[in-house]
Structures are given as structure tokens and as C-alpha cells.
């Protein structure tokens, strides 16, 4: 039984094992939006650290895919968790109260993709100015007219 199987036992998540020499990912799973909080709590107590919380804008399917990457300091397994949300009103539950380091990642994904991390106490922009209204990493993003210029 591998470390990942042991950790995820009893969570009803089907895990795939891609070729890690080719992709660098040891295990991956797609979960539903409800599963991410219990899952990340399990991962936290198993000692996995959070590498990144991010998203991919799949504009052709009208979907935004959240990508969570976890790793372990001693077991060295990179676990990729994905989940899908609607592109018009993207919403994910926060894991910022489980992984304190996730707060900044969620703020960043929130401003770049317009994702609402429900339950997060801190939804301010992280990198962009406070007054920014556009979401630059969306595929239909166009350069704002005033970019690069100062009035």
C-alpha cells in the first residue's frame, strides 16, 4: 500500500498514478467541490505541504479548473488535486483555515481568475492594486486601455 493510498483511505476518491518520470506528478485525483475541505484536512494531518493553489481557465468548455498541488517533505509524493467550477461565477470552498499558507495562494487565484473562495476571511487582492476590476489570467482578457500609461 503506497503512502497516498494509506492517507486517502476511506475518502471515496479515485486516484490515478501517472508516469512521474514524464510528468513529475506522482498521483492525481479529481474531486468534487464538497470533498476538498475534508480532503485537505486529511492531507494536513498526514503532513503534506501545500505547493500551490491555482487554476486553469478552460475557456472552450466554459470551465475553470482549480489545481491544488501537495507534496510531502519525507515521502516525496506530488499529489495533484483538481476540481471544476462554472466559469461565469467560479466558486471554491476555502482551505485557508486548514492550511494557513493557502490564504495567499487563494487571494492570488481570486484576483487573477475572479474565483470566489467561499468562507475565506481575507479576499483582498494580493498582487494587483485594490481598485483592479479585470482578471488577467482569464483567456479572454484584453489589455486595458490605460495600461502602461500614467495620466
Amino acid at each position, binding site marked *: 500500500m503506497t503512502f497516498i493510498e494509506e492517507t486517502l483511505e476511506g475518502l471515496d476518491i479515485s486516484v490515478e498514478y501517472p508516469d512521474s518520470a514524464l*510528468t513529475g506528478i506522482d498521483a492525481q485525483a479529481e474531486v468534487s467541490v464538497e470533498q476538498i475541505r475534508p480532503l485537505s484536512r486529511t492531507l494536513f494531518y498526514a503532513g503534506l505541504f501545500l505547493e500551490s493553489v491555482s487554476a486553469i481557465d478552460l475557456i472552450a468548455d466554459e470551465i475553470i479548473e482549480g489545481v491544488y498541488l501537495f507534496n510531502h*517533505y519525507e515521502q*516525496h509524493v506530488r499529489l495533484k488535486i483538481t476540481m471544476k467550477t462554472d466559469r461565469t461565477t467560479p466558486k471554491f470552498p476555502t482551505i485557508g483555515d486548514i492550511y494557513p499558507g493557502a490564504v*495567499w495562494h487563494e487571494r492570488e487565484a481570486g484576483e487573477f481568475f475572479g474565483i470566489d473562495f467561499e468562507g475565506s476571511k481575507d479576499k483582498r487582492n494580493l498582487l494587483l492594486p485594490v481598485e483592479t476590476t479585470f482578471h*488577467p489570467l482569464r483567456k479572454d482578457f484584453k489589455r486595458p486601455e490605460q495600461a502602461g500609461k500614467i495620466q
Partner: protein
Amino acid sequence: MFDSQENSTYQLEPVEDNQFVLNLGPQHPGTHGVLRVILHMDGEYILTADPVLGYGHRMQEKIAENMPYTQILPYMARMDYLAALSFNQAWVCVVEKMCGYEVPRRAEYIRVLTTELNRISSHYLWFGAFLLDLGAFTPFLHAFADREMILDLLEEVTGSRLTYCYFRFGGVSSDVDDSFLQGVQDFVEHMRSHLKTYHELVTGNVIFQMRTKDVGVILPFDTWGYGLSGPVLRGSGEKYDVRISEPYSIYPELDFEIPVERDGDCLARYMVRMREVEESLNIIQQTLDKMPDGPVRSKVPKIIKPPAGEACMAVETPRGELMIHVVSDGTKVPYRVRYRVPSFGNLSVFSRLAKGQLLADALAVLGSLDLVIPEVDR
């Protein structure tokens, strides 16, 4: 235990008599760039610290979605300008992984040799800047004099002083010659003897010890919650180094130690980095001894089109684990590139560390985290 959100959310509210709000940065010599920290102070003590990022945001992830794979390479050097070669390596390795390009052995040795030189120069700059933060000026001069020797060597092969773009898909851009290898050998010998001066000058210094010992202690519990990596993590007793855990290039063939300290304070992080310099010298010596002959660049297509799919590649930069996640749709432009930069996680723990500290100690903590702000902001 889970009060981090409370830490990082700072609200302007009426403060009590002896409490005030202090704005640190974005122009402040102690923040090493354009970091801004809003501090809620009670006298000299910090109640909450809220870092404000983004003053150096340079759209790296958006640029990567709009550039061919080859043209992204120069931008990697601008992301973390102190460890340009580590970032170069991460990018060329992830593309090589996706396309299955072979790298000649001599090129791998040159890559490791130059990356480790770059690591030493980065640690020296940190050494100088950290001690400037603590009020010592002379170590800065020592560190920069030695750093210039590395820059001269690297300039000889890469052509630039700071923002190197030396690696290519399937090798390196040009071969090294014997005068360079001899220069590196001389440097290693010089540095082995000169490191003693560093330790005599700084490590044993009573003031330095008092400023750093038991200051900014990272508890083991925080390490994985905040996703720490690099010397910041290894200063807290976790033996995690990508060069060992996910071996890439020729690191499995080399014999080197991973320095670990248990205390988790600023002094531990300092000691880890100084011991890493010694280990890097060991690695360089081994690559010099084993340097094979042969070509330095394999043949790769002019236009790079990785097959549709994704790949993750992690490398160990001087600041910690850099992970690049590339999603390709089979065209010559990546569909999505995600940079997981080490300083991002290392800085996020700052608001927890600063709580309850004296202001002067918080700046020592900030210095000991070894931040490169354009890398955090990307």
C-alpha cells in the same frame, strides 16, 4: 493554531493610547526591495504584521501564456535575478521533460557547476544584506568582493553579470574552456580558506549571536502549513532538498550533505546557508574532477512544440523549492504556466513570526528569510 487569517487581516480601527500603525516600505532598506508591511504596533512591540505584495508584479504567468517556449527563457532570469541559473534550469528541464530531449553529460556537468557557483553568489549577497540589516557594514564588503569573483567567472561563460540566459533546451549555449575551469579551481581554493574569515568576523560575534539566537523561531508545526522550503525549512530541522528528494540532472552521482539545523531561529537559518556554501564548494570540486568531454548541446528542433499534456518540474534554488507546472495544448505557446516560487511560502510565515516581536527583531527575521521580492510578486 489556525489563527493565521486573523493575523494577516489587518483592519484600520481605533487604536488604544500607546498603539499605532507603522507603514514599513515599499521603499525601505530593510525590506530588500519593494515589500510593504503594515505593522500594528504597541510601543516597540508588533501586534500584527500584514505584508502587502505586488509592488514588483511583472506578469510572468501571463507573459508565459503568450510567448513561445524559447522566448520565455530570458524572463526566467528576471524573476529571481540572484539565482538566474536555477530558474533557467527549471525551465529547460521542464521542457526537456515534456519533449523528451536528451542532454549531453558534459552539458549536465556544466549546468551543475554554474548553478552551484550562482548559489554561492546568491548566498553571499544574502550574507551581506542580512548583516547590513543587523547594522554590520564590513561583512557586506567582504561578501561583495568575493561575489565579484564569481560574477567574473560566470560572465566569462554566460556573457552577463546577473541575468544569465545560458542554458538551452538540450544543453548549454557554449562550451567552457580550460581557463574557466582553472579559474573555478582557484576560486574554490580561495573560498575554502576565506570562509574562515567570515566565521571569525561574524559567526562568533557576540552581538550577532544575541541579535539572531532564539529570534523568529519557526515551529515544526508551521513548516508544512505554510509550505516552507529551502534554508528556511532546513533551519527548522526538516531535511528536505529537491536535489535529493526528486533528483534531477547529475545530482544523484555527486556526494554532498544537506545541512540541517534544529533550532529554527535566525541563527539556524544563517548557519544552514553558510554550511550550504561549503557543500556547494564540494559539489563544484566534484564536477571539476569528473568533468567529461564531449558535446554540450544536442540537436533539438528550432520550433518547440511539446505534446499536449502537462509536466511539473521542481529544482532547488538558493531560496528553496521552485516548481514549474506547465500545461501544453500541443501548440508552440504554453496554455498555462504556474510558478511555485520559494519566497512566496517563506514570506507568508512572516506575519506569524513577527507577532509579539520587537521591531528590530522583525527586521532581522525578514532578513533571515532571504527574500527576492520580484520573485514573490512574479
